[in-house]
Every structure is written in structure tokens, then in C-alpha cells.
């Protein structure tokens, strides 16, 4: 795991402050070398030895499965970068404002050669505090980028009032209840808050969202089109839950952008943790439940047109 090259995906709508953040990452003193994959190469000055332009070419597989959709250009570029591994410590992929982050993320799970050598560290989304509300109305990509994010920078906070900012945060939370939110001006942020997050590492899911298990009862954030659905319950029967979650994500995968869960399996001293992108699921038994820690289960799905009642019914049927 540790010798895999970490990849940070930087998304955000045009003008939100991605390039400013990228230049901050590259110029700050941290003793690390980054290979940077950018779009619209050459338009904005980026001062780095290893910068390469990508063409955002999405490959759909012959089987037509949305979850096998990958970014062909990333596969080729990273394969070439890996031949010169000594030259850099990590990779940053900057996407255009119009890009769908799902194929970018899926590339690191679906392509075997890539997943053997690199790992997705986190999807970081930069949003413009002033214009986010408008973008959410007119740009479906902007919604995707928020729903998909592990870390969200609400940038240009100096241009809006505290009330407006609270409204922006509410809108973001409606789309994504577990991403880490940071308020920034000129994308100014401590780099360890955006890099080295291990957001896709099952052992780290709780560190990233410490309040993940705090909320009680069913929770439902709503947006007209995209929503997050979460449920909290007690112990779960793994013999019922595993077939259910597998089938649910196989059938509903195209609608689900991200999923996460922590489960207390009956007679199992360790916690079961899973995370997923569309129908790709990664799950494992993790650290033991601590003494005094409440053994409870929680699942979260972010997606489009999710059938809340059906999910509730399916999940409740797995309870002990």
C-alpha cells in the first residue's frame, strides 16, 4: 500500500480557484515533488518540471457498464509516469470544470495496472462561494463534483456575507454529508488538509468523518435531483447484509455516485467498513469496536433519484 503513488484529483467549476490551489501546492516548501496532469495545458502558467496535458478521453467498455467507464488518457499518462518513478512522490490530476469525476476515480479501481501502482488519495473540489448557488442550478457537473468530493474548499469567502456562506454550506451538505468542508480565501489552506488524506483507505474513513456515526436515526438531505440518503441502526446480520448490498449496488449502481458505511455485524468484534463508487464496492473488517463504543451501523448513499423507501426497507431487513 505505502509504495503506491498517491493521486489527488482536483475538481471544481471554471474560475473557482483550482489553479490557484495547484500553484500553492507546487510552490510551498514541503520537499515533495509532484507530477501534475492538467487540462487546457499551457493556458495558465504552472511552474513545475513534470506537467503534462491530458485530453479527458472517456473510455466506455464494450459491456456498456457505466462503472467500467475510465479515463483512457490517465491510464496512458500514468503508465508512462510510472516508468520514471524516482522523479516524483505524488500525482495531482486537475480536471476541467466540465469533467465528471466518476470516470477519473473509477480508473484507479478498474484498471489493474494502475491500481497495482497507484492509489486514489482523495477527490478535492474547489467551489466559488459567490457563484455556487447559480452553478448548482445550471451545471449538472458542479453537482457531481460536490457529491463526489472527499474534501471541499469553499473559496472566495471574502466576497460573501456570513449568512450567504451558511446557505452555501447547507446546499453542499444537502449533496454531500460527509466531505470535509474548509472555508478559504485565494485557496489558502494548509496542504495536509488536501493532500495525503487516504480518503479511499478503509482504515481512515472514520478519521475523515469523525461525526459519521454521531447522527442518530435516519437522515435525509434533499436536493431536487441529487440526494444523500443515510440510515443508522443497531447490529446487522452479515449473511443478509452482504447479498443485499451487493445486489443493491449492482442494480442501482448507475444512480449511486458514492457510498460509505460502517457496520456492527452480529458476533463480530471488529467493525465492517465499506466504500464505493457507483457499483464498485470495497469493504473489509477493520479495527475492533472499542470498550464503551456503541455498536451501531450506518450507511450513506449519494446519488440521483435514489429510492429512499426501498433502501430503508432493504437495510432494515438485514437488522438482527
Amino acid at each position, binding site marked *: 500500500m505505502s509504495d503506491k503513488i498517491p493521486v489527488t484529483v482536483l475538481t471544481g467549476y471554471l474560475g473557482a480557484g483550482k489553479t490557484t490551489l495547484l500553484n500553492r501546492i507546487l510552490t510551498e516548501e514541503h520537499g515533495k515533488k509532484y507530477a501534475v496532469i492538467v487540462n487546457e495545458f499551457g493556458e495558465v502558467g504552472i511552474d513545475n518540471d513534470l506537467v503534462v496535458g491530458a485530453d479527458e478521453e472517456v473510455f466506455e467498455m464494450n459491456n456498456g457498464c457505466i462503472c467500467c467507464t475510465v479515463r483512457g488518457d490517465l491510464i496512458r499518462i500514468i503508465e508512462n509516469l510510472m516508468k520514471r518513478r524516482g522523479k516524483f512522490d505524488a500525482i495531482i490530476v486537475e480536471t476541467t470544470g466540465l469533467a465528471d469525476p466518476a470516470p477519473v476515480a473509477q480508473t484507479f479501481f478498474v484498471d*489493474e495496472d494502475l491500481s497495482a501502482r497507484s492509489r486514489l488519495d482523495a477527490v478535492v473540489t474547489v467551489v466559488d462561494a459567490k457563484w455556487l448557488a447559480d452553478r448548482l442550478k445550471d451545471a449538472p457537473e458542479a453537482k457531481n463534483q460536490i457529491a463526489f468530493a472527499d474534501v471541499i474548499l469553499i473559496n472566495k469567502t471574502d466576497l460573501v456575507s456570513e449568512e450567504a456562506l451558511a446557505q452555501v454550506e447547507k446546499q453542499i451538505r444537502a449533496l454531500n454529508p460527509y466531505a470535509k468542508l474548509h472555508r478559504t480565501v485565494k485557496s489558502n489552506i494548509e496542504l495536509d488538509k488536501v493532500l495525503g488524506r487516504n480518503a479511499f483507505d478503509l482504515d481512515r474513513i472514520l478519521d475523515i468523518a469523525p461525526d459519521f456515526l454521531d447522527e442518530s436515526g435516519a437522515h435525509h438531505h434533499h436536493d431536487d435531483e441529487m440526494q444523500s440518503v443515510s440510515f443508522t441502526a443497531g447490529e446487522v446480520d452479515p449473511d443478509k447484509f452482504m447479498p443485499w448490498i451487493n445486489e443493491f449496488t449492482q442494480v442501482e449502481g448507475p444512480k449511486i455516485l458514492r457510498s460509505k458505511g460502517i457496520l456492527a455485524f452480529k458476533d463480530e468484534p471488529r467493525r465492517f467498513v465499506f466504500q464505493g463508487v457507483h457499483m464498485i464496492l470495497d469493504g473489509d473488517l477493520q479495527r475492533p469496536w472499542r470498550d464503551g463504543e456503541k455498536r451501531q451501523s450506518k450507511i450513506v448513499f449519494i446519488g440521483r433519484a435514489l429510492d429512499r423507501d426501498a433502501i430503508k426497507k432493504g437495510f432494515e431487513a438485514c437488522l438482527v
Partner: protein
Amino acid sequence: MSDTPNAASPEFTSLTEHVAPLAAEGHVLHAAFVKNEPVLVLAEGEIVIGERRVAPHRDSGILVAACDRDGIYTGGDDGKIIRTLASGESETLAHEKGKWIDALCVKGDAVAWATGKTVSARDGKGQIKSTVMATTPQGLCFLPKGYRLVIGQYGGVALWFPNVDAAAEKLEWKGAHIDVTVSPDGRFIVTSMQENALHGWRFADKKDMRMTGYPSKTRCFSWSHDGEWLATSGADAAIVWPFQDKDGPMGKAPKELGVRSSKVSSVAFHPKALVVAIGYEDSCVLMCRFTDAAELLVRRASRMDGKISAMAWDEAGRRLLFGTEGGAAGILTLP
């Protein structure tokens, strides 16, 4: 089948004592014999020609390479296409400023390359023609007859005559095609695909053929000297497809040579006999005879050296050159 062939067993013959190690000291991208000199092209930018090391791309890396009898053609992340001779002299043939060279192939004194969505071909007189494709070209190969290029890309392959002012002809097949190869007689075009399969077309009537069952991507092809067999990487044996008949491999099972518990990463048919050199991800190299599947050990597995990333026979078929991702290399001289 055992993991590592037991060199001590009486029926297993080892050639390891006939292998001279070479210090490549870097990811070996390509191996070849040029003017009878062993050549290793390294991803970091150096080219090892016999005892000499040259760096025609200066501080830049080499992304793609191909060789003919007289020269080494390389495309770098400096956007340059450079031809280097066995003497070490080099000449820049083209410069695509600020771009990476994604694919490259040679035939005679012509060279073709791709960068972004553009494919360019340079003939022996130095004339360069370019065309822009709808999707990014991944693999390039000249057809054996005429000055015509096969371009592997998303959705199939395109056939382009650089000297004819007409759109490329398309052979369509859904999915992402990566590398391209053409049978020596020009009858068949074969591509490797993102989804762990090969696709083929019979040139005469464009009939499709699918070759599936690989656990991972095929990234190395080698045709037998008689053009009747195609050896491929990507499985835990060299998968060798029959192409003698007019239907190619359709409806026929491939031969599996050198089955081991490590995946095959490189294959190289002997230039004169039905013998194939097989390189594995654990850096082991075997030589397999086609007729009876007899195996000879060329290099013992050593995981720290990385996978065998390039192999080449000399023209006479007396020497086999190989290199790994980790920078180990060697040359076998047959006794």
C-alpha cells in the same frame, strides 16, 4: 506446473551460464539489435548501445521506441522524434513542442508517431504528413505493403495513407484498442484492448475475430518467422494463436506455452525457428520449443528486478537480449 523450473532436475536444461548480465540501470523500455549491437532504450532517457551510453533527449525521458536494422527511433516527453545510429550519432527528425509522444512505429526509412489526437508520418525523404483523429491514437503499425498506417484508437482502427489526401478508412469495434500489430503477410490486423481481450480483422473482407480469456491486458505481441503464429503476453502462459488458415484463429484454441504462476509480460519469437522466448512479471525468462513444449531456463525469477519489459533476438537467432523494469538486463548467447 511448478513455480520456478527446477534447474537441477535432469530433464530441465538451464542456459543461465550462457547469459552475460548487462547493467541497464533504469526501466528498460525497448530492446533490439542494431547493426548487430545490443541496444537497450531506457525510460529515463538513455540509450545503451553495446558498451556506450548516449542521451539524445538530454534531460528528458523516452516514452516510446522502435528500431530497424540501422537506427533507433525514440519519442520523448520533450516532444522530439530522434533517430540514433549504432555509432551513437543522433538526428532530430521532428519536434512536437510541449507534447508527449504517445506511440511510434518504423518501417524501412519511414517513421510514424502520435501525439494527442494527431498522427504524423515521415517518409525517407523527410516529408512529414499529419492527420487529426477523432479519438486519441494508442497504437501504430505500418502495413507491410505500401506506405499505409494502421492506427489503433477508441472504437476500432483507422487505415491511413499519409500520401493520399483522403480520410482514413475505419474498421470499427466497440471498446478501447491499445496496441496494434499486423501479420507479416498483411492478412490480419490484431489489437489489444482495455478489457483484457484481443480483437482482429481479416484484411481482405474486414471480418471480425475476438480472442478472449486473458486475466490482464496484452501489451506485447510477437509473430513467428513464418507468420503463422502470434504469441501474446497477459496470461500465466504465453498465449499463441494460430494464423495459418484463411480464417486465422477463428474457432481454434490457442497454444499455451510456459505455464507458470507469474504472468507473462514479454514474448519474442526466434527469427528462424518455432521457439519463443517468454519473459515474466517476476523477471524469469524461459525459452519454449513449439513442437514439444520443451522449456529451457534463461533467467531465474528475481522479483526485485521487476517484470521483463523488453526482449529481442538478433537477426541470426544466436543471441537473446532482455531487460526489466527494475533496470536489470542480460544477453544470452546460445551455445
